[in-house]
């Protein structure tokens, strides 16, 4: 069948999965007085529509920051404003100042769900289609399978269309950035990434690789000739787009500071809730959250993050190829996720969008969040579907030879060739083990009651297990990136 037909069918399947998950409950449904993320988005529409721009990020009589105050960069605010204008055309009650708090109705739910899907269709899905059809390597069958698997990735569907968020916008824009860089359109790529960064500050996880890659590329072109011109052009693009997005907030330094303060709440401490992060897992053994002062915590996380990101950054700067760039994205986001300050469970989505082979643990770590939102059924169904289909379409378990895993150079360097024949069994075991653990923990979290003395037992177990896995992946991807030989440049993954 022609590619366009297959791609359309994959897109339609992805959209069907999104709409059917949308039928379910959302975050904070009927849970007065604070509700959840759904109410937060609705509240932002209310605030941006009714109040002048200078009041959006400030605590005023009309804008109570304690009730879901804006804590994303300005592009989110403008997006909410746009949605609010449409909402106003349909039913002004939805965004009436103060009176519409906690507004819930089937029509409103349909409207909100529709805005998420609309953003998906406009930004995220085209990016994925272009990426799979033009940038990925392999036969057309492999490309279509990759497209289907990425579009059916449960994590994004459950968070965006179930729990309720707009991650697809920032992820889509970041993906357009990657695409731009991959096709050689550096300016457009930087523009797209700047927009992504202005939408959600979590995209900082991916910012360093972009910076080092572009810098390295300019360096390779020669810092006195073409390289300098390119550097200037890129810097101008980035600065101008930032300025345009943040324009209303740049006139008054107070405004800018307040926005920054809202985006990076330093007072909150190393972490909140149970997240698959090193600090949270460390906290089980050593109560660092209470032992160290907030300032020390900030410096500690800052330092360790930079340290974790350092090897891959240096390698990328010295060898700015697209393949290295993708690996660096992986490493950077893993490092930031594991060691950074105030990480949320949903940030985990940032890890797995660009590269296909998403491990089951990413899904598992979101489980406590999804259980709170009554999304257990769709979680099971979509996870099952995704795992089964990616296994079927890619026979993932067969791709476990040393060559496929790109550990060849590493083995040569360390002289561990004798492990060669037992390696694939180790990988297969590991994969099977992780799937089994995921199933087991899912079942336990949903069906069993935790013992009274340890009420958070299951979320903590889940987070700790996931954290260990992510540390393993950080090690693996760093090894792959650092030990890449110049000749294997031509081959790319899937």
């Amino acid at each position, binding site marked *: *069948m022609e590619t366009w037909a297959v791609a*359309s*069918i994959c897109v339609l399947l992805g*959209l069907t999965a999104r709409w059917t*998950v949308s*039928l379910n409950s959302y975050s904070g449904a009927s849970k007065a007085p604070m509700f959840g993320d759904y109410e937060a988005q609705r509240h932002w529409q209310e605030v941006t529509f009714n109040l002048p721009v200078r009041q959006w990020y400030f605590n005023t009589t009309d804008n109570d920051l304690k009730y879901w105050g804006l804590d994303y960069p300005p592009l989110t605010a403008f997006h909410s404003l746009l949605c609010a204008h449409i909402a106003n055309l349909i039913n002004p009650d939805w965004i009436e100042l103060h009176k519409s708090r906690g507004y819930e109705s089937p029509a409103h*739910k349909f409207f909100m769900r529709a805005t998420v899907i609309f953003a998906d269709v406009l930004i995220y899905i085209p990016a994925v289609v272009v990426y799979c059809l033009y940038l990925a390597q392999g036969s057309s069958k492999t490309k279509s399978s990759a497209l289907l698997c990425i579009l059916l990735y449960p994590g994004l569907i459950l968070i965006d269309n179930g729990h309720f968020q707009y991650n697809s916008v920032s992820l889509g824009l970041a993906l357009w950035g990657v695409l731009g860089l991959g096709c050689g359109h550096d300016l457009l790529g930087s523009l797209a990434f700047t927009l992504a960064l202005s939408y959600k500050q979590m995209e900082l996880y991916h910012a360093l690789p972009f910076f080092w890659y572009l810098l390295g590329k300019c360096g390779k072109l020669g810092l006195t000739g073409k390289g300098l011109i390119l550097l200037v052009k890129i810097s101008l693009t980035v600065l101008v787009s930032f300025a345009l997005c943040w324009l209303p907030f740049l006139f008054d330094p107070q405004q800018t500071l307040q926005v920054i303060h809202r985006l990076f709440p330093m007072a909150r401490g190393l972490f909140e809730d149970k997240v698959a992060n090193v600090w949270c897992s460390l906290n089980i053994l050593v109560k660092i959250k209470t032992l160290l002062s907030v300032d020390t915590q900030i410096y500690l996380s800052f330092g360790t993050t930079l340290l974790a990101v350092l090897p891959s950054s240096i390698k990328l700067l010295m060898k700015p190829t697209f393949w290295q760039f993708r690996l660096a994205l992986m490493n950077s986001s893993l490092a930031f996720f594991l060691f950074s300050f105030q990480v949320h469970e949903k940030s985990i989505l940032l890890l797995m969008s660009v590269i296909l082979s998403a491990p089951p643990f990413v899904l598992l770590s979101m489980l406590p969040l999804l259980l709170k939102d009554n999304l257990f*059924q769709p979680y099971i169904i979509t996870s099952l*579907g995704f795992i089964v*289909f990616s296994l079927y379409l890619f026979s993932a378990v067969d791709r476990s030879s040393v060559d496929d895993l790109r550990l060849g150079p590493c083995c040569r360097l360390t002289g561990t060739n004798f492990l060669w024949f037992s390696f694939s069994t180790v990988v297969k075991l590991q994969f099977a083990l992780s799937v089994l653990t995921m199933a087991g923990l899912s079942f336990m979290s949903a069906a069993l009651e935790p013992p009274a003395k340890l009420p958070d037992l299951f979320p903590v177990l889940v987070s700790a297990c996931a954290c260990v896995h992510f540390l393993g992946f950080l090690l693996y991807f760093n090894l792959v990136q650092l030990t890449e030989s110049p000749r294997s440049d031509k081959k790319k993954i899937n």
Partner: protein
Amino acid sequence: GVMAAPRDGTLSWFLALTLGVSLIKFLLIKAYHSTDFEVHRNWLAITHSLPVSKWYFEETSEWTLDYPPFFAWFEYGLSHIAKYFDEEMLVVQNLTYASPATILFQRLSVIFTDLVFVYAVKECCKCVQGGKRPRDILGSPSFVLAVLLLWNFGLLIVDHIHFQYNGFLFGVFLLSVARHFQGRHLEGAFLFAVLLNLKHIYLYIAPAYGIYLLRSFCLIQDNSDGSLKWRNFSFIRLAALGIIVCSVFALSFGPFLALDQLPQVLSRLFPFKRGLCHAYWAPNFWALYNAADKALSVLGIKLKLLDVAKLPKASMTGGLVQEFQHSVLPSVSPLITLICTLISVSPALFSIWHRPCGARGFLRCCVICALGSFLFGWHVHEKAILMAILPLSILAVESKDDAGVFLILATTGHLSLFPLLFTTPEFPIKILLMLLFTLYSFTSLKRLFRPECCLINTVESVYLSGLIPLEIFCELIYPLTSWQQTFPFIPLLLTSVYCAFGIIYSFFRLYGILLRGPRYTTKRKSH
């Protein structure tokens, strides 16, 4: 005899397709369900809580038991599993009881009984001849047929959103068809007898079965010129058929005969008190007839040929009602619809009697019988179009002409099912699933018959493209106008009338193919 092409490779693709559609079915658990949900819950309650003698007399709920006894026993079996989910649903007095556990159980029961359908599809795929390129699994007729049947749009939305057990019933039907293709006629007859006792709507196809079995099964061999050879009439086979059918019916109706309740059961199964058309006019001939009647009366009033006072009340603004009184054209009674139906299907029955084309001819006759009774029957539901679309899929993957008719019939038939799902959250889902199925059926069938040029001609494609603006108008534009309050039935009328043209056209096309003889992609001997 007919031939199973040896299939290479494992059945992994079939499993993948089944799993995929099952996952979608699971995701649809939370979707809207219609009053049919309450109907089946009520039947679970009746069969579980009351003795057999009261099943066909129980009237607490308006949804009385109106399916044959085997289905009642099926509900009885389900009710024994239901009690582990929520016992309250089995209390007859709990009208419209719909706790989350009840919904989960009912939805799961549909998904699991669909396994019968999955097995039947597997058997049908074995009967379909392999393509020219055996290595290309995705382009083989078996694969295309599996998708067209397992992922059929109509079945998905009627069974898993609207709520019915058609998957299970069509499974029995398709299994019976597959058995006839494989030459196992007694099993096929047995399955059809069971099917008749599960849902009596399949009586529409009974003539096709009767003629086919008499002609091709009981008459063992024809003359060299193909004409009848009465000497070869096998009474043994006839007796075997008779015994099978009669024992099935005896098992089904026996208890009620013993209880002297047969008239009551029959009156439940065949309630002729309802009107010529359903509340939503199925896109059949009578819909056109009613629409013409309405149009003529409006015209008559405008031209002062008719007196408004003499017209039946509420015929102008009443919209689509069941008891439709015709103002201009003559009224229609159940007897007239029966005669029309018989007239419409008899040429097909004669054709397979005089010129039997084997199992495929029989299947084509089934489709024509189903379509004929859809077009001319009394109080037809729009869901009955599935009875024609599903068997036609089997013919469509083998013959270019059938593929063309299938595309028209399936697209218009599926679009006519849209008014069944009128809730806002389900609107995008039905659009997406419809696009999925239509896109796949067009591209895959076109690819199957690639060397030949297009399957549908210009006029047909214009008609089919007209469905899109029709749908946009009816579902998006019309509700925003002021006429929505005064004439709420206009979108339904328009959809019904527009689709009726497509379905009637397909009916005549199918007749053309039957009488002319189909052209297959590969040469085959007839049975």
